[in-house]
C-alpha cells in the first residue's frame, strides 16, 4: 500500500422510484498520496460528490456501493461495517460540506460543535479540545480566535462559517479531508481568504485532501492533481499544470474554453443605440419602517442612476448584499422605490408594478436566478410558456401551441419537453424555459438576475452564448446582474460596479484592466485566474481589504 487512498473500479448504483436501477458511478479508480490534494471536477450529475462521499463509505439514501474497493489508509471502506466506518469518520477522514450555514446547528455555540468530534470519539478532554480549536481558528486566520467559539452560527459571516467548518473537520487530526464545493456559495473577495486559509493548514499539516468543485480556476489554486469526471466516469487525470496547459479530453477542453468566454465583439450598431431605453434617476429603495423624510430605515439601494441604451447591455456587478438584486426588483416594480424616477421607453413608469399598464409590464421582463423556484412545479412546461402568450397577446390555443414550439426552438430545447414538468428538467434546461417565458412576452428589456450563477461553467457559457444570439436576432437589451465578472464581461457593453447600495463606478469592458475606484480594483483582482500560482502570488492592499473585505 503506497498511497493513502486507492479506489479501484468503484461502482455505485441508485434505484429510482419506478424500481429501475441506474449506475451512477461506472468503475472509477483513483489514487491520492499522503499530503496530496486531488480535485474532482465536473458538471453537476457527474458523480463527483458521490465519489467524495464514498471515500467515507457513505452512499446517499437510495444509492449503494455495488462494486470495487475503496482503500483509505489500508482499510476498505466498502467492506467495513457501519460501526467500523463510524470510528474512522471524523478521525481518519473528515468532511467539509458545501453550505456551512446549513450544516451548523443554530441552537448551540460554535465551540460546542467544533469540539463535538473529540467528544464522540473520546480523543481528548474538552479543555484540551478547546485549546486545540483556538489554535485551529488562529491557523485558519479567523478574527478573534479566542472569542469566536462562544458565538452562535448566525453571528458570523458565511466565509468565517466555512472556515469554522474546516476547523471542525481538522480537530480530529484527519489524514484525509473531503471538501465539497466549500467556496461555491461565497463572494470572490471572501473566497480568497477561505482558499488561502485552507491551503495553508493543509500544507502545514501534510493532510491529503479531496476537493470537489466545478470551478476550474478555484481548483487550480489548491489542487496538486485534477481528476475530470463526466457521467460517472473518469475522463482525464493529470497534474494541475498538465490539465490546464495540455488538456487531452474534449470535455476538459470544453471546460477550459467555457472558463474564458470570448470577449464580446465591438458593437456594430453602436451609433444606432443613442436613444436610451431605460433611465433611472437617483432611485432609493430599502427595507424597514419609513422615516420622516419618506425614506426607509435600511437603504439597500441608495441614489442610483443608470441608463440602458436600446440594443445594448448593462452589467451590474457586486458582492452579495450590495443591493444589486434589490435594484433589479425596483426596476421591475416588485419592490417599489421610495424615491427617484424610472423612465422606460420615453415614459415615466409607476414605481409599483401593480400600477403599470399591461404593455409596460410586457415590455420589461425579469428572469430570476433560481429556475427551480421561478417555474411553477405543478405545471407542464407548455402551460408555463404559453401563459404570457394568452395573457399579453390573447392567442388562441392553436396559435399558442405553435408559438410554444417556436420558443422552444429559439432557446434550443427539444419540442418534446413541453409535456414535462420542471422537476424533470436539468438546471440548464429549466433556466432556458425560464428565459423562454420572458421571451414569450415580446419584451424590449430583460432583466437577468444572476441567471447563470446556479449553473455549471459549461452550461452557463452555453446560456450566455444563447443570450448573445437572441440579442442579435431580436434586438433585445439586457440588464445583467451577477457577481461573476467573467460572465458580465462576456455579454455587457457597460459594467456598473455596486457596493453597499451605491454605484461605485461605471466602466466599459475594454477599460476593465484598469478600474479606478479602489473597491472595483479589489473586486477585479479577487477573481481567480487559471494560473496555479495566482493565489500564492496575489498581493492585496491590506488597507483595501480591511476597508471593503468582509473579514
Amino acid at each position, binding site marked *: 500500500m503506497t498511497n493513502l487512498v486507492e479506489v479501484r473500479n468503484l461502482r455505485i448504483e441508485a434505484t429510482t422510484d419506478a424500481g*429501475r436501477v441506474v449506475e451512477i458511478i461506472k468503475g472509477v479508480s483513483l489514487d491520492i498520496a499522503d499530503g496530496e490534494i486531488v480535485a474532482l471536477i465536473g458538471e453537476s450529475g457527474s458523480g463527483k460528490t458521490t465519489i467524495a462521499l464514498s471515500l467515507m463509505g457513505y452512499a446517499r439514501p437510495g444509492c449503494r456501493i455495488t462494486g470495487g474497493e475503496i482503500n483509505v489508509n489500508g482499510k476498505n471502506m466498502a467492506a467495513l461495517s457501519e460501526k467500523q466506518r463510524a470510528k474512522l469518520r471524523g478521525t481518519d477522514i473528515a468532511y467539509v460540506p458545501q453550505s456551512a450555514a446549513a450544516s451548523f446547528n443554530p441552537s448551540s455555540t460554535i465551540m460546542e460543535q467544533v469540539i463535538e468530534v473529540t467528544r464522540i470519539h473520546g480523543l481528548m478532554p474538552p479543555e484540551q479540545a478547546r485549546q486545540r480549536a483556538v489554535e485551529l481558528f488562529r491557523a485558519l486566520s479567523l478574527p478573534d480566535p479566542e472569542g469566536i467559539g462562544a458565538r452562535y452560527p448566525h453571528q458570523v459571516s458565511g466565509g468565517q462559517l466555512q472556515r469554522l467548518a474546516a476547523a471542525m473537520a481538522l480537530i480530529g487530526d484527519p489524514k484525509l479531508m473531503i471538501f465539497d464545493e466549500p467556496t461555491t456559495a461565497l463572494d470572490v473577495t471572501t473566497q480568497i481568504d477561505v482558499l488561502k486559509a485552507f491551503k495553508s493548514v493543509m500544507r502545514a499539516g501534510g493532510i491529503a485532501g479531496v476537493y470537489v468543485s466545478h470551478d476550474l480556476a478555484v481548483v487550480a489554486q489548491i489542487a496538486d492533481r485534477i481528476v475530470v469526471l463526466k457521467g460517472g466516469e473518469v475522463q482525464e487525470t493529470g497534474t494541475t499544470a498538465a490539465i490546464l496547459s495540455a488538456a487531452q479530453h474534449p470535455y476538459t477542453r470544453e471546460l477550459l474554453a467555457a472558463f474564458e468566454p470570448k470577449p464580446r465583439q465591438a458593437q456594430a450598431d453602436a451609433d444606432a443605440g443613442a436613444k436610451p431605453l431605460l433611465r433611472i434617476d437617483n432611485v432609493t429603495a430599502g427595507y424597514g419602517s419609513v422615516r420622516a423624510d419618506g425614506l426607509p430605515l435600511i437603504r439597500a439601494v441608495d441614489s442610483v442612476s443608470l441608463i440602458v441604451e436600446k440594443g445594448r447591455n448593462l452589467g451590474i456587478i457586486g458582492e452579495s448584499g450590495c443591493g444589486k438584486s434589490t435594484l433589479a426588483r425596483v426596476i421591475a416594480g416588485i419592490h417599489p422605490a421610495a424615491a427617484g424616477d424610472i423612465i422606460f421607453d420615453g415614459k415615466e413608469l409607476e414605481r409599483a408594478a*401593480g400600477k403599470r399598464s399591461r404593455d409596460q409590464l410586457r415590455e420589461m421582463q425579469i428572469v*430570476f436566478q433560481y429556475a427551480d423556484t421561478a417555474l411553477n412545479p405543478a405545471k407542464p412546461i407548455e402551460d408555463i410558456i404559453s401563459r404570457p402568450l394568452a395573457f399579453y397577446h390573447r392567442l388562441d390555443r392553436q396559435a399558442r401551441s405553435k408559438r410554444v414550439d417556436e420558443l422552444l426552438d429559439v432557446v434550443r430545447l427539444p419540442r418534446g419537453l413541453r409535456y414535462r414538468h420542471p422537476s424533470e428538467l436539468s438546471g440548464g434546461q429549466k433556466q432556458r424555459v425560464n428565459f423562454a417565458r420572458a421571451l414569450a412576452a415580446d419584451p424590449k428589456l430583460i432583466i437577468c438576475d444572476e441567471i447563470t450563477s446556479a449553473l455549471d461553467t459549461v452550461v452557463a457559457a452555453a446560456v450566455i452564448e444563447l443570450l448573445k444570439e437572441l440579442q442579435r436576432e431580436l434586438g433585445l437589451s439586457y440588464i445583467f446582474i451577477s457577481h461573476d465578472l467573467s460572465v458580465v464581461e462576456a455579454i455587457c457593453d457597460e459594467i456598473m460596479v455596486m457596493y453597499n447600495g451605491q454605484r461605485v463606478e461605471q466602466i466599459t469592458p475594454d477599460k476593465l484592466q484598469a478600474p479606478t475606484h479602489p473597491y472595483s480594483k479589489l473586486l477585479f483582482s479577487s477573481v481567480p485566474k487559471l494560473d496555479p500560482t495566482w493565489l500564492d502570488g496575489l498581493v492585496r492592499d491590506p488597507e483595501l481589504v480591511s476597508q471593503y473585505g468582509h473579514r
Partner: protein
Amino acid sequence: MARAGASRRSFLGHNYNLVGVVASLVILAWTLIAIFAPTIIPHSIGDIVDDDYFGPMRQGLWLGSDYLGRDMLSRVLMGARYTVGISLAAVCIACFSGVMLGMFAAVTGGWLDSCLSRFLDAMNSIPSKLFGLVVVAAVGSSIPALILTLAVIYIPGAYRFARALAVNINTMDFITVARVRGESTAYLIGSEILPNIMRPVLADFGLRFVFIVLLLSGLSFLGLGLQPPLADWGALVRENIGGLPFAAPAVIIPSLAIASLTISVNLLIDNLPRKIRDRDA
C-alpha cells in the same frame, strides 16, 4: 422502507400500496351503501320485526335487533347514508370555504389577512360541542342545520391550514413573476397556488372528514344530532347503549362502522398513490 418495497406496485404511472387499496375499497363500499341503502335494506328502519329486544345475530336478522326489536342491519345501512352524507356535505363546505379564504388571505396580505385571521381565530376558540349545543337549542335539529353547524366549526381549521401552505408558496419566484405579469388575484389563487397545495389540502380534507364523522357521532350520541326514528351511527350507539350488559351486537356494530370508515380514510390519506417521476422506466 423494506415494507414499502414489498407491497408497492405500479399502475398507470403511479405507485400504490396494498393498505391504500384496501382502505379505498372499504370507503367505496360504504359510499355505495350510502347511495343504495333504501333499495337494499331488508326491513323498513321503523318496523319492529323482533319479538325480543337486543336480539342476537341470526338468520333473517343478520346483525340482531335493537332496543325496540328493530332490524339492526337495516338501521346501520341507512345510518351510513346519514353519517357519510352529512359529513361529506359538511366537509365539502368547510374545506372549500376554508381553503379559498386561506389562499385569498395569503395572496392579498395586509389588513384583510389580519382581520380574516383574527375573526377565524375567534371562531376557533369556541368549543365545538358547545357550539353545536347552542345552535341546536336555537334553531332545532334538522339535517341542513347540522351540515351548516359542522361546516362552520371546521372552517377555521381548514383556513389556517390552507393559509399556512399558501403563504409559503406565495413567496416563491413564480408567484412574483405572475404578479409582475399583471395577473389577477383569482388567477394567482386558482392557477398558481392551488395546484401546488392540492395534495396536502386533499389529505386535510380526509382528516377533517374523519373529525366531522366523529363530531357528528358525538353530537348524535348526546341526542343533538338526527332525531328518531332516523339515526346515524353515533345515534345508533347511543340508543343501544343499554345493550352493553347483554353483549348485544346492536352496540358494537355501529361502533365498528364508525371505526372502519374513519380508519380507512386515515389509511388512504397516508397511502395515496404516488406519481412515478422516473420517465425512462
